[in-house]
């Protein structure tokens, strides 16, 4: 009976690392969010007070928190469908029998995914420059007024949404592609014999078969999009007029700029709760729909 003790040697180190450096801090976050840990407490732990749910209540009364929540929801509600639509579209195009140079296209379309977000955010910030950016130049050629992409409170978040779609669509595209390849040819044959156009085939064969994948991709993308942080940090610093402050950005500023760890932990937990709730909702809705 060598197996049991040996198994612990195998799982032990990993479990230890995960336990100490992930699960323990998550539990501690719960505790931290019930205190008013701030810069004074950093100086002297004696200055720490237990405040119960005060941080949560105060957050709910802070206008910037609600703005951050709103911004994040805006990003998710618009960004996720856009990203998934582009990914699905790209996958369908690649999957089509009419497509040539498939592996070149697939690599090219996937390239943005592996790039460092900070590096390409810098590039995009310049491409969308009000005066010297390529995008406004093209618009100018088309006779459209230049848009202050990153300086106008109404356009900053849409720009970030576009950027996120560009950066991430390749990821879901590959997943869709793999699942498209798994749809049996006979189903398409049958539909074609019935005289269905490519559009009807899409609607009645492809999409239903992709159902579970759509759900999975939807949940993964939604959960990921809720964690928006690096784009505002690099491109807009939360501006203009706090229109691009996301919940994580807000948490980062509370925690690591103002050193209010108690409040920041509360925000992080609220975010987690939100992601959990939305994910659960998506699962329930899809269960009912199917």
């Amino acid at each position, binding site marked *: 009976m060598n197996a049991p003790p040996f198994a612990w040697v195998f799982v032990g180190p990993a479990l230890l690392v995960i336990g100490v450096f992930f699960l323990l801090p998550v539990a501690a976050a719960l505790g931290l969010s019930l205190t*008013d840990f*701030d*810069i*004074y407490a*950093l*100086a*002297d732990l*004696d*200055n720490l*007070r237990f405040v119960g749910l005060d941080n949560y209540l*105060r957050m709910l009364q802070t206008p910037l928190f609600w703005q951050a929540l709103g911004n994040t929801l805006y990003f998710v509600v618009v960004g996720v469908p856009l990203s998934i639509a582009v990914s699905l579209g790209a996958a369908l195009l690649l999957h089509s029998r009419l497509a040539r140079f498939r592996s070149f296209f697939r690599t090219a379309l996937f390239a943005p995914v592996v790039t460092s977000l900070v590096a390409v955010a810098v590039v995009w910030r310049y491409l969308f420059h*009000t*005066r010297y950016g390529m995008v406004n130049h093209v618009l100018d050629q088309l006779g459209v007024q230049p848009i*202050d992409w*990153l*300086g106008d409170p109404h356009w900053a978040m849409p720009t970030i949404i576009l950027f996120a779609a560009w950066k991430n669509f390749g990821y879901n595209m590959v997943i869709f592609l793999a699942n498209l390849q798994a749809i049996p040819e006979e189903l398409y044959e049958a539909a074609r014999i019935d005289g269905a156009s490519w559009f009807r085939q899409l609607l009645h064969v492809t999409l239903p078969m992709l159902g579970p994948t759509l759900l999975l991709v939807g949940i993964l993308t939604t959960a990921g999009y809720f964690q928006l942080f690096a784009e505002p940090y690099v491109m807009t*610093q939360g*501006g*203009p*007029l*706090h229109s691009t402050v996301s919940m994580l950005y807000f948490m980062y500023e509370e925690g*690591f*700029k*103002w*050193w209010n760890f108690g409040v920041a932990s509360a925000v992080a937990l609220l975010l987690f709760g939100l992601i959990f709730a939305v994910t659960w909702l998506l699962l329930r809705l899809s269960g009912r729909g199917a």
Partner: protein
Amino acid sequence: MMLRWLLGALLVLLSGCVPSPSDRQTIRFWVMGREGEVVARLLPEFERRNPDIRVRVQQLPWTAAHEKLLTAYAGDSLPDLCQLGNTWVPEFAALRALAELKPEVAASRVIAAEDYFPGIWSTNVIDGRLYGIPWYVDTRLLFYRRDLVRDAGFDAPPRSWEEWERVMAAVKENAGPAGYAILLPLNEFEPLLALALQQDEPLLRDDATRGAFASPGFRRALDFYARMFRNDWAPTMAGAQISNVWAEFERGLFAFYISGPWNIEEFKRRLRPEHQRDWMTAPLPGPKGPGASTAGGASLVVFRSARHPQAAWRLIEYLSEPAVQVQFHQLTGNLPPRRTAWRDRRLADNEYAWAFREQLERVRPAPKVPEWERIVGEMQMTAEQVVRGRVGIDQATQALDRRVDAMLEKRRWLLARGKSQ
């Protein structure tokens, strides 16, 4: 025999005096922004005068400096000395991270407190204790287009609010709908802060534990500020929306711009030679006459956890010598905080700097609480909302006070416990 013994002893003594490489102390010096890039040029002379000290400079970008300093504090990896914006001094003093410097100053032959502009020196004094030595100063005053003001019918820059309003109204009339009288980027808090500091009432009351933004003084300042937008004297935009401030100033888009010392060199550099006689600086007008302005700038501080505090202090003394301060000014355009340094010809002859010399005698520090940076951010957000017409002044200032009171709650609690600085 005695002679040989004496010689031997002398040799031993001397060899002890000449520092071997292993005796060299290396002090870590953190600097930010442009100053960081430039200070390295001042160090070879210091190291020559102090062969037992080596200075290792690390440059931090301003945008990350605050976080880095706090993380270093938490991780116990602060340097020996550092350049600290003087609005951060209260915060680090509250953390008990800074060494007190009064004894050093008392014993110093280089640094004399009376030589410094009092408003600037006082930014480093908290609860009677001295935590930093001013390194360079920053304040805000008027940069203006002499020719546009003259065309509007005025020979001299305004000295009071009332005069200023008259000048701005006349300039705006000349400029028409597409022009403005003054540029006030909505993301900059310094202009409004300067106007607020000119008032008699303080910005925080009750030993800086409660907001006093609903006081008549601040309301007057905010009203004056908002009026400039209401009358269309100032365009309603943030700094990022002006693509090139200097080009627009040259073009005459606005006649007044409230800015700091670095722009002297920038304007000299970026405006065309034929326009160099068209602009000038002037002290900030106050409610009843020449007014106060912000007491900005940076100090040099020594951390309590410094491994070589005496060596760090010697570097501070070196950088505080008037001659070195003038050199620093040449390299960065930053203004020295010591009156003696201002007597140097290079500063005394700089006509653009005269307004600063005058203004520096009338600077007032902002409230010295750690929460101030957050509070001033809230102040600016409130001002922007008032300017954009989203909320009235009374409502806005009362709401601001409520938020500020909430921010200062911990400070109130600590003071009540008797444990604060």
